[in-house]
């Protein structure tokens, strides 16, 4: 565990020593803010209209937070590849992988360390968006539990993406190739449910179960369903497992 933390710390330091951490966090905060602003505007307009008709009020959680999380999840498709693309590629390009692989470390320690490091940056990225939530709590009266569920969903989905990103980064020396391929795979994982439409209901059920984003909506709604928890956790485990296999096979090939 000490070794895992040493690697994770090194990864985090690497992110913050290069522009990547700031670009990623800034980019995500900006987009999140733009969506926040747009939904807030729409929300206020609709609330006003509904108040004008004298009929009830809008629900902040359902009408603002949920679509906001939905959009944030799409932004992750673009942002996570930037976090994971360097993890292994850069070490291979610069030769530092030789240091890691000849140090008294197991593959699992290195992989977990890198995973936790990337996750750390991702959490920092999510933490910035709490600012917008603070505004909601200051100005309104939203229910905190669905928001927490939404963040849990974002966390799990991001972690799944990171596991896939690690795997792809291990396959190439070139960061750009890693980043682009990762983005492509994410997109595929996202749209796989659409492809199923032509194949009848059964195939479609399977494909939409595979789609990484299908599982997110319940979290955004504030529902924590074990089905989705299991999906994300097994996705992460499988991604890390494949990364371990890939590291081992790369070693044989030299």
């Amino acid at each position: 565990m000490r070794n895992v933390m040493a690697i994770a710390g090194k990864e985090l330091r690497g992110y913050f020593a290069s522009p990547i951490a700031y670009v990623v966090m800034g980019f995500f905060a900006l987009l999140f803010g733009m969506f926040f602003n747009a939904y807030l505007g729409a929300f206020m307009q609709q609330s006003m209209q509904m108040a004008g008709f004298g009929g009830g009020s809008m629900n902040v959680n359902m009408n603002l937070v949920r679509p906001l999380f939905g959009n944030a999840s799409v932004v992750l498709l673009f942002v996570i590849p930037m976090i994971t693309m360097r993890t292994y590629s850069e070490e291979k390009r610069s030769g530092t992988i030789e240091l890691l692989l000849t140090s008294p470390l197991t593959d699992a320690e290195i992989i977990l360390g890198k995973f936790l490091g990337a996750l750390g940056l991702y959490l920092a990225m999510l933490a910035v968006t709490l600012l917008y939530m603070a505004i909601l709590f200051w100005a309104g009266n939203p229910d905190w539990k669905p928001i927490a569920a939404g963040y849990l969903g974002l966390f799990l989905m991001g972690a799944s993406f990171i596991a896939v990103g690690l795997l792809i980064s291990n396959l190439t020396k070139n960061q750009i190739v890693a980043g682009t391929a990762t983005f492509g795979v994410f997109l595929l994982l996202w749209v796989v449910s659409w492809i199923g439409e032509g194949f009848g209901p059964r195939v479609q059920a399977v494909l939409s179960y595979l789609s990484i984003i299908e599982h997110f909506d319940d979290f955004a709604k504030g529902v924590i369903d074990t089905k989705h928890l299991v999906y994300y956790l097994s996705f992460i485990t499988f991604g890390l497992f494949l990364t371990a296999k890939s590291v081992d096979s790369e070693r044989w090939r030299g």
Partner: protein
Amino acid sequence: MIEVQHLSKRYGRVTAVDDISFKVERGEILGFLGPNGAGKTTTMRMLTGYMPPTDGRAIVAGFDVFDQPIEAKRRTGYLPETPPLYTEMTVREYLQFVARIKLPKGVSSADRKARVDQVMQKTWIADMADRHCGKLSKGYRQRVGLAQAIIHNPEVLVLDEPTAGLDPKQIIETRELIRSLAGDHTIVLSTHILPEVSQTCQRVVIINKGRVVAIDTPANLTAQLRGSSGLYVQVDAFEGDAAAMLARVPGVLKVTPADRQGSAAGFEIDVEAGRDVRRDLSREVVGSGWGLLELRPLRISLEDIFLELTTDEPRQEPEVPADA
């Protein structure tokens, strides 16, 4: 301390290392010599556990590198061809990171810091402690790489071309550093610079195309390949006379004029094996009233051996009579 048994590495159809075996005793410096692409780096990578061999095994400090990799790696320091530095870290940060992953679990952080300082002193990089690794000169990078390799005080050091790309002064310093590390550490170093081997190594493994072509001390290798010994003589005389006179000395087989500067003429002399003609030769020269300016044995340098062993000319082998 290091035992390599029938190590081979094949990539698909290409054989990079082909059945290499050698041993290194405790405290010894072994030189790994070969042209580029001979399989030096591949062998070292297998020795350090970076990649597994296709066949054979390597035992470092009593541990099989592939069955007990963690134990073996704990006792091995490795400087790859390009020092594995994280450019965004300062030298101190980098060494502290390496210390964290390489030193045993029980070591306190104060001891780790002390060890980092100690290693920086030892490799003369203390003045660069707060410089980013990416901004170091080639010489300093190499030294930080060396510091990284010795930080956990390993029993075995594997250095892949430790002096490549350094300027002459740095090369001398690095060699001194390596020599000072021997004794405490068993060292395997690779190089394609020949004088380096004769200056730093006790034994040499010459490899070519993935195979071992010779293992011995630099002195023995030189002696073995010299065949009949030769002499170089420079006399102050007319060339023709001198050559005829030198040829008369008993034991001299052949006199070849080598160079001429003014009245000083140099000759290379082939001598019967095992016979020392220097006394007779000098007496003859001085007795003739000429000046003896220089008399020294001709040595074949490691360079000649290296070329002999690794160039691709077909060796002349005795013809085997075909069985009727």
